[in-house]
């Protein structure tokens, strides 16, 4: 009886989930084995799309760009989030204001307008160029320089540390204060306290944030699309995985190929998630564990 009521209430969501998520995913799985140009009926070609991928230089380039972004951007973002969360965890006046102020960029950061602002800021003679020139560093505009676009994107993601910060803050508040007091009595300094109390006590939250942010980073699209005019330039330096997927599907009419790319991404992200969970046992501590 209870179960039936439960499913009844779940039904609207479940229908949406099946029609809008599961259905399209299954059809994209099918399409990934076909040659489909949006107009003619899909032609079954087996694994061809998947094998072609690895001979496609642009594809390999997009993998390189994306992995670089994930590997450098995610840890930096989390470090910034944790550092600010610890600063905001102390009892001072106006903490509510600071929390909101630091959180705001993550609300608007993914928007189109911010990408446009970012592009203007990092362009030739933009504020960033001028600011650096003041200190004698003449890099010119970052937007047109293939070796400076990645640092720009990493800065953009680090700046949006608000969401993981709020979660870190919640986690920090859960750590009982007596642990720190006891450590102080034993003469532990701030560094020691951080590594022996904060880090292990916070490790589930760190794990959660790391997982979510990594998955999130793999999916970067909007800002790359806008800053590079939808082309992934200059010289392919912002050709992120999802951007190339989109170009393949909607500019080149290679929907089968794009679907194969999408599924490869799902599989790879799935494997990474699995590895995270497996390795987490050695460094993530949950309360109640005998450790």
């Amino acid at each position, binding site marked *: 009886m209870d179960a039936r009521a439960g499913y009844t209430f779940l039904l609207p969501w479940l229908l949406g989930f099946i029609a809008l998520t599961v259905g399209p995913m299954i059809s994209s799985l099918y399409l990934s084995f076909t040659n489909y140009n949006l107009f003619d009926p899909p032609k079954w070609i087996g694994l061809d799309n998947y094998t072609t991928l690895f001979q496609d230089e642009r594809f390999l380039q997009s993998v390189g760009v994306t992995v670089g972004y994930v590997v450098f951007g995610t840890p930096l973002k989390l470090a910034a989030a944790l550092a600010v969360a610890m600063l905001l965890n102390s009892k001072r006046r106006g903490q509510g204001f600071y929390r909101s102020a630091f959180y705001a960029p993550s609300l608007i950061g993914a928007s189109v307008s911010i990408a446009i602002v970012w592009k203007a800021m990092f362009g030739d003679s933009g504020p960033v160029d001028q600011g650096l020139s003041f200190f004698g560093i003449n890099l010119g505009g970052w937007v*047109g320089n293939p070796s400076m676009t990645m640092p720009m994107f990493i800065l953009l993601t680090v700046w949006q540390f608000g969401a993981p910060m709020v979660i870190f803050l919640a986690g920090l508040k859960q750590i009982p204060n007596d642990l720190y007091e006891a450590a102080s009595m034993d003469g532990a300094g701030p560094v020691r306290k951080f590594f022996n109390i904060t880090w292990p006590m916070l490790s589930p939250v760190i794990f959660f944030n790391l997982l979510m942010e990594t998955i999130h980073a793999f999916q970067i699209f909007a800002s790359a699309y806008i800053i590079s005019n939808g082309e992934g330039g200059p010289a*392919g330096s912002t050709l992120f995985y*999802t951007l190339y997927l989109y170009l393949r599907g909607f500019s080149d009419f290679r929907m089968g190929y794009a679907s194969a790319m999408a599924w490869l991404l*799902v599989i790879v992200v799935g494997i990474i998630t699995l590895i995270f969970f497996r390795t987490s046992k050695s460094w993530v501590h949950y309360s109640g564990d005998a450790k």
Partner: protein
Amino acid sequence: MINRRHFLTTVAVGTASAAALAACGAGSSSSGETGTAEKPVTINYTWWGNDDRAERTRKAIALFESKNPDIKVNGNFTDFAGYWQKRATEAAGGGLPDVMQWDLSYLRDYGQRNQLLDLGTVKINTDAFEKSLLPSGQIKGKTYGIPTSTNAFAVYYDPAKLASLGIAEPDGSWTYKEFNDFLTEVGTKSNSALFGSTDYTGVWWMFNIWLRQNNIEAFTEDGKLGFTKDDMKKWWNTTAGLRGTPAIVSEERVTQLAPKSPFGSNVTATEVTWDNFMAGYLGDSGAKELKLVPVPSDDPDNLGLFLKPSMLMVASAKTKYKDAAARFIDFMVNDPEVGQIFKTSRGVPASKTQRDGTTFEGTDKLVVDYEKSIEQYLKDAPEPPIVGFGTLEASFKRVSSDLNYGKLTIDGAADAWFKEAEDLIKQNA
């Protein structure tokens, strides 16, 4: 505190799935649904362009609605690159707008795949068109697009800038070497304050013109490439000595300035492109006057030039309002008042009725005069290029840009482009 179960149940798997949902279009009678003044039908019209064109189009639509009270036109526009991605999405869902501005590069992609209405089946008057121009909107005997206007390739320059550098104005009869020397002179005399031009070898249509100057057609009749890798390398070598010198603006600058062109931003003295960009360049650069001369050629009798339909009007194959769509297209291509509104901003009007009904003054007259001055050199307009040509044109631009960034050698660039082209031709075969 946090316990394990809490966490492990929060499993998140990110997915990026591109899904295409097929929808079905509605069938319709031969002329489609029609409206009355009391109960007008509404057709959707979409185009690409800047604010200037949007303003002119709004005027044209208002005029059309006042003359045709039984039809309302709902207009919508984006920039060129986003335009095609949007159309692809709509076509996949069966929801293309009723009437669309179209580009020759994409005519086969949609025409051959039955997405566009055969305009031979509706009433559109083409009596006032040059007979040599109409085939560019036709595929296998069916008319999918009506040209609104023509454009031709030209070299733009700003006479005031040349005068300030003490450089004589070009007369347009020049070889590639003379043109290159001219670009170098601009860059050197201005001490790099003004570059000669962008790397014109990165423009597909200029490559196409160069091929024609050498009596090579870019594509064969059966949809294959008509030129070789060596032709392409030779072409990119034309400016090999200029890259990285003040003759050519750096690719870094070009990227930063986008979507504005270096010429429109007063960074270069010349630009090689379509003659209907005049109005846009004047607006962007604020120059008092810009002039047009023919492109360089090593054969003074063969400039490889042609008139291309700068844009076409097409209708969706699935439109419910065929009659209304046809009347709107007819109006846009033939009506003299529409010519007065657009002048040469779409190109020189293709229909004689519209051309004769338009007064061209100032810079508009320059564009019309330019097309008249090259009349003796003009060859037939190319047929609609191969399926997927839009992609090839984009990758030509991209590979050329990589070349200018020094990421690819000329050999590497040619290899990369040919690999993509051959792959694409195989895909669509």
